[in-house]
């Protein structure tokens, strides 16, 4: 496989003029603009560096306004960086505004040809792939009908079909899984997997954590235009989900403080701003726990200050990133106002009634309003559970059945079972 990256981004920054100034100028403001000092610009993206190689898939997550679309536009080359560098090699395919350029009065065929040619194919190339495009979009009966008669799903299917048949080297995708019905979505996924196997580098912007976790090789989390975390899908999505969940539960007016990505020591398994740090985590119950036996963890921290009043979090996740337990000191109504600056926290579950399997214990310290993580260790501390009853599912408690029966009649079957 080609070792040089297809997408290379270094120290990328994009500054926009103030939002309201993006409205078109009139002559009056145009002339006045020379005299008035410009309003303060804002950075939509700052300090981004990453690369994506052939066959690799990068997920980009973050809240609305975090800079995801700006990043896609910069990668597509339709806007240009204020600082730093973006280089993208090869043909770029974009699944951004699907079907936005279709003309209502033209037929599906005419629109598909226009879309293919404007996406970078010659007419000959479009004609030679046309049957595949129509078959993929499942529109063979309607291809000569005007697009105004199409449903939204049909339009998107056609647009998607054209875009994936341009054989791009780099594919930029914005929420592709919202296209069409479930069967079509499955085909989209497998087509994207095919492109990827063929060496296409893919950038997927999505709010669907499941898709990001299942399909991406690495995940970039953007918060206010900067990298909040960058690493393995399981770790980044879980931290993101935890933070988003908490944000919705604890809407706070606090402005998020600076946080940075620093994987030292725990490559790919640690995120947080490090205002407080977890220096060690020990599984007191050992690396193998018997189902139903006690489980306890010791967390050593430092950097506590009276002003912080942080929240401590412990969670248990299965190997595939499924959360089995996620609890914290706030849920336990435990105050950390008089927390000592350094110390050891102990967390105990008297009976760990988990199904047999391999798990991770995760520990984190969060901002008091769940604004961001100070330090979060994710999937760094494995343990396994054994000796559980053979149930299916995540929990394996001791179970009891009560079955109502009719009056017993002695039969040969019951005799033989005795």
């Amino acid at each position, binding site marked *: 496989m080609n070792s040089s990256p297809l997408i290379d981004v270094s120290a990328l920054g994009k500054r926009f003029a103030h939002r309201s100034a993006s409205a*078109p100028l009139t002559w009056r403001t145009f002339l006045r603009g020379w005299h008035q000092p410009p309003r303060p610009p804002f950075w939509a993206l700052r300090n981004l560096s990453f690369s994506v190689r052939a066959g690799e898939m990068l997920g980009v997550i973050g809240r609305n306004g975090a800079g995801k679309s700006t990043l896609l536009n910069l990668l597509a080359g*339709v806007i240009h960086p204020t600082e730093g560098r973006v280089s993208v090699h090869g043909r*770029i395919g974009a699944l951004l505004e699907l079907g*936005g350029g279709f003309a209502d009065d033209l037929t599906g065929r*005419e629109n598909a040809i226009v879309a293919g040619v404007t996406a*970078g194919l010659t007419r000959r190339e479009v004609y030679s792939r046309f049957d595949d495009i129509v078959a993929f979009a499942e529109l063979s009966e309607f291809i000569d009908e005007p697009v105004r008669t199409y449903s939204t799903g049909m339009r998107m299917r056609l647009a998607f079909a054209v875009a994936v048949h341009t054989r791009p080297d780099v594919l930029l995708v914005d929420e592709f899984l919202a296209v069409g019905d479930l069967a079509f979505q499955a085909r989209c996924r497998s087509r994207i997997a095919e492109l990827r196997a063929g060496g296409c580098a893919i950038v997927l912007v999505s709010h669907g954590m499941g898709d990001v976790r299942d399909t991406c090789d690495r995940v970039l989390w953007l918060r206010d235009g900067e990298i909040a975390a960058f690493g393995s899908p399981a770790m980044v999505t879980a931290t993101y989900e935890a933070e988003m969940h908490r944000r919705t539960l604890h809407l706070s007016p606090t402005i998020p403080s600076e946080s940075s990505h620093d994987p030292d020591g725990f490559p790919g398994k640690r995120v947080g701003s490090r205002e407080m740090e977890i220096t060690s985590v020990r599984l007191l119950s050992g690396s193998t726990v018997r189902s139903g036996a006690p489980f306890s963890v010791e967390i050593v921290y430092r950097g506590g200050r009276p002003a912080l009043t942080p929240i401590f979090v412990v969670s248990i996740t299965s190997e595939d990133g499924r959360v089995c337990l996620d609890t914290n000191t706030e849920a336990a109504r435990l105050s950390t106002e008089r927390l000592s600056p350094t110390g050891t926290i102990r967390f105990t579950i008297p009976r760990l009634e988990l199904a047999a399997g391999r798990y991770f214990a995760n520990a984190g310290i969060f901002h008091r309003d769940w604004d961001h993580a100070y330090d979060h260790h994710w999937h760094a501390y494995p343990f396994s559970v054994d000796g559980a009853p053979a149930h299916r599912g995540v929990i394996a408690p001791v179970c009891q059945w009560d079955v109502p029966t009719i009056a017993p009649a002695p039969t040969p079957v019951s005799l033989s079972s005795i």
Partner: protein
Amino acid sequence: MNPTAGAVSLGRRRSLEHGLDVLAVLVSRDLKLLYKRSALGFGWALLHPLIQVCVFVLIFRGFLGGKVENYASYVFIGVLVWGWFQTSLAQSTSLITSSRALLRQPRFPLSLLPLVTVAVRLFHFSLALPILVALLWMQGIRPTSAWLGLPLLIAIQFALITAFALPLAALNVRVRDTQHFVGVTLQLAMYLTPVFYSIDSLPARLGRWLEINPVVPLLEGWRSILLRGEWPDPGRLGILACASAVLLVLGHRIFVHQSRRFVEEL
């Protein structure tokens, strides 16, 4: 041959082929969109200049017809040549602001868009030419070897219009007043162009000023070829061709420079 040079020339040939395909596909799209759902179809493209010609001839023949031979053909040439210029520029101003989807297409050669508009209007222009030739025939005019110069006139006019269309399309993204300003200016400019009158019929002092109008040499070229069967004055057309080429390069530069900010501005 060195293999990289081969790859480069192959890449160039492909991008040229692609550029031509983009033009062809977008021109045909625009034409279909204009006429697909209308009963009269391309008839409208002819009706518009014909009505204009009728109006001018009916109103002005009395004043000016005596001084100009074959007045109807004279006006028809004026209406067609000026019409191509005016409608192309008027439409090109709103070109970028109305093509949002294409702006977001990675690596799409946006500077082809003004060419599409100019070419669509050229198509309309060409549709009316047979009617003009028929009119000339009825007035007793027969083709001469000078008619071979017509494609050259068309090429110069194409370059001239595109040279103006590129910066205007780009400017309208930033300053929306451009499209209104251009519309009004073109309307006034028609009266400063000898569409239905002849410069000779004006006072010489005024006539000299009209010579700076770049459409004037083109109109004279068409009229010289079609009405008098003579090759036009190569000096003035040569100057116009050079000026158009310089303006085209300049306009293209301005457009490409501005195009880096299109998506942000919209």
